[in-house]
């Protein structure tokens, strides 16, 4: 029974997404409960999967019984299982949080909206579980197509942002597919486990190097790596406030996870001499992205855009950790990736609350209102502390392990980039917090923060604290799962 759970995790939201027009045929208001039910079932299943993977080892699921490398394989190892649990729970929280938003904002399109949201979540679980490069391409495209449509939901400006995102994203997908074609032409296989046995000797081959570069460009667009990030701030700030938490939390992170998989599970295996150039390219790009991201975040005035650039910087931080090429670096990168998903979700959720409750979109708006809800302010402080990287939050431990890996590899430039990023992150959060705390003393009364807002921000703040307090356990699981990878 436990063997089939990965497929079920994917199928539950997928089937619900397709059946949603039927479920909501009579009454549009059935959409949200149906989506919530599907996501809850998915959350329970993914937790069961995590439990069984942790106790009995990884599940390699072969579709229709065709054994890999001929058949399609899904790999539910510890890392994939943890990421799927995170993705599902974040999706659940962001759908829960959306309930006070009036359904009229969707203008009678709530059936397609929730269908696409569920498709997005099922695609995300597919990307995380998929065990071969082409399958990853297909799921990345499911995710991307759902994301383009979700960004475009509010109409107006958002249409243009969505179109720009679509052009960039589809070019990225083409580059990735080209890389996959190069890999297939030179190795004759697409299965990650199978590739791992064939590529290490082939890293001299120009075709493999070319394929790797094309994949990096393609995934770089998808993960919004610094020079290729132009689509992200517009897309995230124009996306509907109910969808941007889930987009911000997971879109870039899954592409990053795929890149980490290719780096360590495909080419990083075996003799460690040759991939060294690739790894130094990765950390240099990461360092540029993290410093550039925070500098741009400092120059923004719109709150959602500040957070979007903060997210770009954090993608860079993960790449710095991963680019050290060491076991510690890999674990640090993966742990920070998990933290970053939760933090980004929380940030965009809070930005949505600010818009809905107080009508605040820019820093100047924030000056003229009094953010009175202790739930919102408390959660914001927790997230800010975690983004900056102060104990005892998850962000601190993530950053700590990245610093540790940089010090272990005596990579002081990377260390400098991390420190600059941390200080500038402090600076841009100080700008936001200063305006939040110095709110206007006499401002119009706002209605009480709805229960679902309070519950969702509290849940995410608790998750951030939990990731810090139990970081020890999670990191030891990750260390165990990545044993033997990296130098």
């Amino acid at each position, binding site marked *: 029974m436990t063997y089939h759970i990965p497929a079920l995790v994917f199928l539950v939201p997928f089937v619900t997404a397709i059946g949603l027009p039927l479920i909501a045929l009579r009454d549009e208001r059935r959409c949200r409960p149906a989506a919530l039910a599907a996501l809850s079932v998915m959350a329970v299943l993914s937790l069961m999967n995590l439990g069984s993977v942790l106790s009995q080892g990884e599940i390699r699921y072969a579709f229709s019984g065709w054994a890999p490398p001929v058949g399609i394989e899904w790999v539910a190892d510890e890392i994939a299982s943890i990421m799927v649990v995170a993705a599902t729970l974040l999706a659940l929280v962001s759908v829960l949080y959306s309930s006070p938003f009036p359904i009229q904002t969707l203008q009678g399109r709530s059936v397609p909206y929730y269908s696409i949201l569920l498709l997005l979540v099922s695609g995300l679980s597919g990307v995380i579980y998929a065990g071969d490069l*082409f399958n990853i*391409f*297909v799921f990345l*495209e499911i995710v991307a*197509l759902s994301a*383009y*449509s979700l960004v*475009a939901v509010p*109409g*107006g*400006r958002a*249409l*243009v942002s*969505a*179109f720009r995102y*679509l*052009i960039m994203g*589809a*070019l990225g*997908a*083409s580059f990735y*597919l*080209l890389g996959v*074609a190069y890999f*297939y*032409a030179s190795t004759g296989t697409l299965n990650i486990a199978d590739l791992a046995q064939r590529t290490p000797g082939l890293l001299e081959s120009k075709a493999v190097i070319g394929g790797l570069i094309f994949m990096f460009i393609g995934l770089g667009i998808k993960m919004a790596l610094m020079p290729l990030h132009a689509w992200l701030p517009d897309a995230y700030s124009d996306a509907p406030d109910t969808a941007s938490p889930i987009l911000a939390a997971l879109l870039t992170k899954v592409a990053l996870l795929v890149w980490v998989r290719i780096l360590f599970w495909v080419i990083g295996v075996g003799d460690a001499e040759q991939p060294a150039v690739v790894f130094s390219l990765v950390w240099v790009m990461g360092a540029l992205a993290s410093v550039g991201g925070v500098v741009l975040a400092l120059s923004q005035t719109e709150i959602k855009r500040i957070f979007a650039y903060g997210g770009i910087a954090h993608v860079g931080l993960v790449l710095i950790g991963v680019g050290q090429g060491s076991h510690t670096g890999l674990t640090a990168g993966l742990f920070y990736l998990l933290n970053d998903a939760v933090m980004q979700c929380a940030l965009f959720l809070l930005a949505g609350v600010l818009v809905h409750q107080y009508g605040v979109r820019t820093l100047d708006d924030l000056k003229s209102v009094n953010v009175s809800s202790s739930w919102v302010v408390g959660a914001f402080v927790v997230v800010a502390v975690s983004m900056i990287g102060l104990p005892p939050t998850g962000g601190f431990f993530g950053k700590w392990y990245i610093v540790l890996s940089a010090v272990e590899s005596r990579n002081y430039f990377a260390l400098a980039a991390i420190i600059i990023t941390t200080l500038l992150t402090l600076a841009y959060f100080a700008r936001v917090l200063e305006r939040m705390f110095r709110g206007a003393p006499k401002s119009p009364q706002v209605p009480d923060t709805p229960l679902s807002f309070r519950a969702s921000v509290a849940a995410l703040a608790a998750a951030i604290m939990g990731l810090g307090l139990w970081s020890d356990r999670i990191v030891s699981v990750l260390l165990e799962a990545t044993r033997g990878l990296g130098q």
Partner: protein
Amino acid sequence: MVELIQVWLSRPNFIAFVILFLWGLYITVVHHNLVKKLIGLYLVQTSVIFFLVTTSAKSGATVPVLMSEAGSVNPEMYVNPLPHVLTLTAIVVQVATLGVSLALVSAIYRKFGSLHETEILNRLE
């Protein structure tokens, strides 16, 4: 140099791929009309698919259907079917992307009354 050119000329399909890919990329980047951008994008995607198919081409080979059960299978006789299967899936993805993008373009046209990028950006200001 001559040898290099000879190597290139022996693979005209790859040259065709490179031309199509770069042409598409150029159109996507340079043109201001949104539909023309989509045409460029479509060209890029098609060129990648063309590349995938062309890697599996083999002269004198036939469709990968076993003619008889007897005797051993000679792989030289058959075309590699996998790139074709990948191509089919990639075409489906491409069609879906095109559908979403055309829907977006028509929504943009209805909203802004123009397909020209700079005009739309001016109207956004």
